[in-house]
């Protein structure tokens, strides 16, 4: 597990070099002045509107794939644009595991995201983790699609 986390961090540095996340973040905060319905910059709503809030995991895994890294680089950019914002990372699991193990797995997933953010320069102090195990699915249904959507971490900006 340790090895895969390291390789993900290495991969993320490559992605960071050409990520468009920071620009998107900048646009969003600029748009806040003109558009009537745009959320206030730096708020939870602004985060949801301008950074993808969740990443997905394979069954019983907590390592970050390429798409997760891309999403998290967007979150990093936003968090750097708003250095006072704090986040809570919610870790979740699908329903195909036992309750207690899934609580631990959710924590491990959330922690994997926290470690990535830390490696990208987002201070530990700004990031909390909480696991919901299989208690709070995002998508209902006992099928592959729902399970894949539910094996996730969700980054929530603290109010």
């Amino acid at each position: 597990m340790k090895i895969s986390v390291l390789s993900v961090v290495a991969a993320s540095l490559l992605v960071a070099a050409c990520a468009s996340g920071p620009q998107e973040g900048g646009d969003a905060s600029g748009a806040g002045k003109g558009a009537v319905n745009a959320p206030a910059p730096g708020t939870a709503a602004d985060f949801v509107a301008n950074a993808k809030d969740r990443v997905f995991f394979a069954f019983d895994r907590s390592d970050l794939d390429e798409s997760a890294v891309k999403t998290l680089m967007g979150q990093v950019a936003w968090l750097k644009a708003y250095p006072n914002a704090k986040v809570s990372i919610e870790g979740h699991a699908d329903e195909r595991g036992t309750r207690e193990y899934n609580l631990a797995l959710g924590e491990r997933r959330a922690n994997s995201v926290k470690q990535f953010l830390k490696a990208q320069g987002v201070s530990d102090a700004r990031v909390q983790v909480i696991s919901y195990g299989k208690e709070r699915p995002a998508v209902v249904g006992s099928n592959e699609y729902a399970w894949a959507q539910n094996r996730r971490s969700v980054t929530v900006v603290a109010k």
Partner: protein
Amino acid sequence: MCVYSSVRRIVCNEVVSKRENVMMKAWSRARGWIGATLLGLVLSVVGEAGVAHAELRIDITRGNVDPIPIAIPAFGGDDERASRLGADLAGVVQADLERSGLFRGIDSRAFIQTFASMQVQPRFPDWQAINAQGLVQGRTALQSDGRLRVEFRLWDVFATQQIKAQAYVTEPGNWRRIAHIIADSVYERLTGESGYFDSRIIYIAENGPAIKRVKRLAIMDQDGANHRFLTDGADLVLTPRFSPSTQEITYMSYYNGVPRVYLYNIDTGKRERLGDFPGMTFAPRFSPDGNRVIMSMARGGSSDIYVMDLRTLERRRLTNTPAIDTSPSYSPDSQRIVFNSDRGGSQQLYVMNADGSGVHRITHGNGRYATPVWSPRGDYIAFTKMAQGRFFIGVMKPDGSGERLLSDGYLVEGPTWAPNGRVLMYFRQNPSDARGQGGDSYLYSIDLTGYNERRVVTPVQASDPAWSPLIP
């Protein structure tokens, strides 16, 4: 609540001492039990008639698919109120015994003899004619002090012998407990195993759609009676477990958005957070003596097992790996702990000494293993298994040998033992479709033999059952 403590006190107070019991036995031998009653001996627990060679005995180590027919006529009463209670009592005794799967209550319309009093001997041919193997004869009376007196005798119909006789005095409001105690007594006498009917279930009551599920702590008697909710659903609560005294539970709550292990006193309603841990605590269970709680703490992506002494509040870390170590359960002698861990790559069961030393893996089969629970008898470990996309409830010996799967489904999880280690309860959740239809969750019980699987009736959907020990 006080119901339980008061009946316990009463029953305890009036249990005849060993010496008295011996005298009683001598007396019954000399005069017979009936004579003793006629002479006005007031006793709460009547001496057992020591019959060494009764024919009626059930072997429950083999799945008994042919339940023993037993007749339990309404317990007669001195007046209308006592008679009503007597009929209800007999009904509860019969329902308990039938739910065990080992007995079949004979329809009262088939009865030939009716009992006007306890002094009437059964006419055994009348009961043999309807093939009643056992006969429970009972009587209720409301005493002048307002208390309820219940006596019963168990007859072996074909051997024409009394094989058990007891009497109880208690507040009338406790009549259901007396019925469960009588059912336990009959079960014990006929199976040689201790009973489990005088016990309770704590579980999680569930309402609402899957994505906004409301969960509440709920408690009920083993047969579903005296149901009540202990929390209002404002906080997510999970995995309650009884202390050996049955007056306290430990569970996990997201109170104030912080997931931690709590203690809850059923009598007082007092709740307290257990310890001051820097990470999420979960998967709590009491030690067999009730003085410690063992649980997991998750932090930094790994979950380890901790034990907390409830008297000194000292905590001790028992595992220390980057893996997920959780769902710990003590052996009944407190010497060992079984838990599940993914330290070997996938979820498997491990056993260690109570101080964390001597960790060794006990499962090597295909699939993932979880939620191990040591039987109160020490002879088995029950578990949840996941293999080929299905879930199973099974048991194995503590060394991992002799695995037997008792039930399976889309999702069956979280076995808990009846106090006698003969019956398991768990929850079963059905699959749901993409619109969220289905997905309902209910409690089930099953005999250790794999027979007699049946739904445990709850007022709403249910999960995470925990069976109490026998109520002290």
